[in-house]
């Protein structure tokens, strides 16, 4: 399927929702892809079933601080340099790229690479949302080695990381990212299409586009965007989406600990609706209503503007905002015991057990 300009904008909007408070603003990424489309290049998105088993897929992303990314805009060559370096290391050409993270700006980077190289993009990813670290991937959960991975900076400098531990891969890549100026471009989890089918969350780029389109159309028709979101999700593998809470921000507490923005936001409900506290580490981790867990990672906790349904990131939360907290369930592939060990509550130091959001409502 070929992505249009409108489809791109819908995808970026939906990706911001799946950023669950983090993931970086897709704005810059969207602009990059728009430039390619306007130059006549094509963005072709293919289903996971459209490649032969042995076809090589090289997932791609940017890594680092969104705050750097909005200042040191990309040269546009980083993604290409990373992909070429990994192809060289593997001695094989890629048949396609794909996102490792469909939430936030990383929904856009594989689209850019695909447009530049004429490479199709597989409609799937390894996070199903946004997560802060490279090992927090279904690929890792289901046994795919993250390396050899490649990493490139805007000068075209590249490095290959090889390790048998995907957590150490994250640690080493983080160090190189800082040396490369705080933002870098990566290709990791090289795998064949059969492995993508086994380990990826399918259809997540389409999911972004569908969510973005639903919000846009609801706005155009002056309908309730949240109702539109719920109706749209019912037809996807995420199946369940619901408004958890409507309220006003009464307190925001944030600190930087070990390179992450950690903190919590407190919302007061309207008409005695209780108090909701959301704890975040870049992305939202757990929402507690009057002390009771009502949604917890990896299920999605989205903070959206109550009027426009525009996603509100953790950095831009501030006192007085009217926020609608919207929760989305994750598909079974993200909820197995192995998956929860990698990106469930305990992976973020939470002692609460995981309970599916749809059973807490």
């Amino acid at each position, binding site marked *: 399927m070929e992505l249009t300009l409108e489809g791109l904008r819908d995808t970026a909007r939906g990706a911001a929702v799946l950023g669950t408070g983090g993931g970086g603003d897709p704005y*810059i990424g969207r*602009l*990059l892809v728009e*430039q390619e489309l306007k130059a006549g290049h094509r963005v072709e998105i293919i289903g996971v079933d459209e490649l032969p088993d042995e076809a090589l897929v090289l997932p791609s992303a940017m890594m*680092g*601080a*969104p*705050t*750097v990314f*909005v*200042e*040191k*805009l*990309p*040269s*546009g*060559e980083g993604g290409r340099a990373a992909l070429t370096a990994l192809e060289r290391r593997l001695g094989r050409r890629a048949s396609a790229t794909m996102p490792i993270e469909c939430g936030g700006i990383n929904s856009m980077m594989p689209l*850019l690479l695909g447009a530049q190289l004429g490479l199709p993009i597989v409609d799937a990813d390894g996070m199903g949302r946004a997560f802060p670290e490279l090992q927090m991937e279904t690929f890792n959960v289901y046994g795919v080695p993250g390396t050899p991975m490649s990493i490139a900076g*805007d*000068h*075209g400098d590249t490095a290959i990381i090889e390790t048998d531990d995907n957590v150490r891969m994250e640690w080493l890549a983080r160090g190189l990212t*800082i040396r490369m*100026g*705080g933002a870098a471009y990566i290709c990791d989890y090289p795998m064949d299409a059969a492995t993508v089918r086994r380990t990826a969350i399918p259809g997540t780029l389409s999911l972004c586009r569908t969510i973005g389109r639903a919000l846009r159309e609801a706005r155009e028709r002056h309908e309730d965007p949240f109702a539109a979101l719920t109706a749209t999700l019912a037809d996807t593998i995420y199946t369940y989406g619901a408004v958890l809470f409507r309220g*006003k921000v*009464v307190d925001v507490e944030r*600190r*930087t600990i070990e*390179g*992450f*923005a950690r903190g919590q936001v407190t919302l007061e409900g309207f008409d005695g609706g209780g108090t909701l506290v959301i704890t975040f580490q*870049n992305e939202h981790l757990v929402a507690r209503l009057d002390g009771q867990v009502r949604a917890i990672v990896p299920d999605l906790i989205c903070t959206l503007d109550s009027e426009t349904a525009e996603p509100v990131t953790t*950095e*831009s939360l*501030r*006192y*007085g*905002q*009217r926020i609608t907290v919207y929760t989305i369930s994750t598909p079974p592939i993200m909820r197995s015991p192995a998956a929860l060990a990698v990106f469930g509550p305990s992976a973020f130091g939470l002692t609460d057990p995981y309970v599916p959001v749809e059973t807490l409502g």
Partner: protein
Amino acid sequence: MTRIERTLRIGIDVGGTNTDAVLMDGTAVLAEVKTSTTDDVTSGIVAALRGLASAREFAPGQIQAVMIGTTHFTNAIVEASRLTETAVIRLALPATRALPPMVDWPDRLRLAIGDHGYLCHGGHEFDGRVIAPIDPEEIKKVAADLHAKGVRSVAISSVFSPVSAEFEQLAADVLRAELPEVHISLSHEIGRIGLLERENATIINACLRDLADGIVDAFGTALQTVGIDAPLFLSQNDGTLMDVEYTRRYPVATFASGPTNSMRGAAFLSGLADCAVVDIGGTTTDVGVLARGFPRESATEVDLGGVRSNFRMPDVLSVGIGGGSRVRGTAVGPDSVGYELTRRALVFGGDTLTATDLAVAGGLAEIGDPGLVAHLDRSAVRATLARIARDVAEIVDRMRTSAAPLPVVVVGGGSILLPDELPGFPDVRRPDHFAVANAIGAAIAQVGGEVDRIFAIGVLTREEVLEHAKAEALDKAVAAGARPESAQIVEVDEVPIAYLPGNAVRIRVKAVGELEVARA
């Protein structure tokens, strides 16, 4: 004969429709006038000044300073007219190549300023390391090209220039040596982190430079015409003043000074430094919040004429409720009869039910002929007025920054719509002279200086870094014209930067002081 004391100030607000002016002696408002804004800048100001003189006689030599807030520059961008052809030089290669200058601009505005973008080597990393060295020969080539094309204004941006301004200054030096006549605007003096947004604000500033010269000269001519030789200042969007020379170089700083002046004027009239301000006009209600006497600034990107930018703007929420709002059933606005209020409203013998008619019927105001609205159903009128109050109160509640009680100051001609109490806000004040709060805001403005940069805490301690930032802000305030002994720090904001090592922290410090005015 006694010496004439220069104790009077004149504040003028030039809006799209009206030009308001006030004559003030210290804290006393001696005279106020409303005149029509004219196409010819000078004559509108002259009319306002003569209006003041006829309302209250004064000798030109008594005027200490004239402060003007104007929408000229905002309108020029919105209309894409009267703009100077402008080039953009971005120091960044090899970074940023994929998104050249003006990439997300509306075609109309980009073409109106000539569409001259240049990408050159340079820029810094977040921690001050160099991305690529700047190449003076490369800048000279650009200069030659600009000379050939006859471009007269240049915006220069460099990656992470808020962290290191070195390359922008270097490029400006090279350019100035080659093209001494060219106007130069540097991004680190104008915006914050966020390259596209800061660069956009710098380009907007650059393309307004010739207009700024024209407007400032026209204001000067107007003062001369009426014999006033006092210094002239212009209002900035943060509620502080800039002098004429500064205005010529940084016209973009005038954007949104209208709402800012209105808020500052409201604070002054009510005597409150921390309050919410509700400005109700004919069509809309604007709500802002003052902290320590200055409007709280917007933290999000501001869209201007279709261009995304991050320059300093007051955080204002608007809703379509005003004195001229049409009323249908229980619905008020968002459409308004606007300037036709005195012809179309029921109380003036017209045929259109407006919010003003409800205020008269509900006993909140005595305007026109109350007999003409006597037939309206009392309980319906009360219910609709209560809804207006509730809607406005909700906007105010949304703007407040803490749960502490917040007084509300109401200004503008449409403020008669509100009762003396708003739901959740028992302390509502409606000061005298509320209709010209914006001109008063211009007259009482102070001067300020701001620092907004990412600092690495390591070699220097956090306290040392903060002291550096504060000293720099105070220096900037004094450079902008503040009396040194009156300058003080009014705002310190510290934001740790996620993902970055080395305890990088973004610090914003603002200093303000009383205007230094030469006494006669």
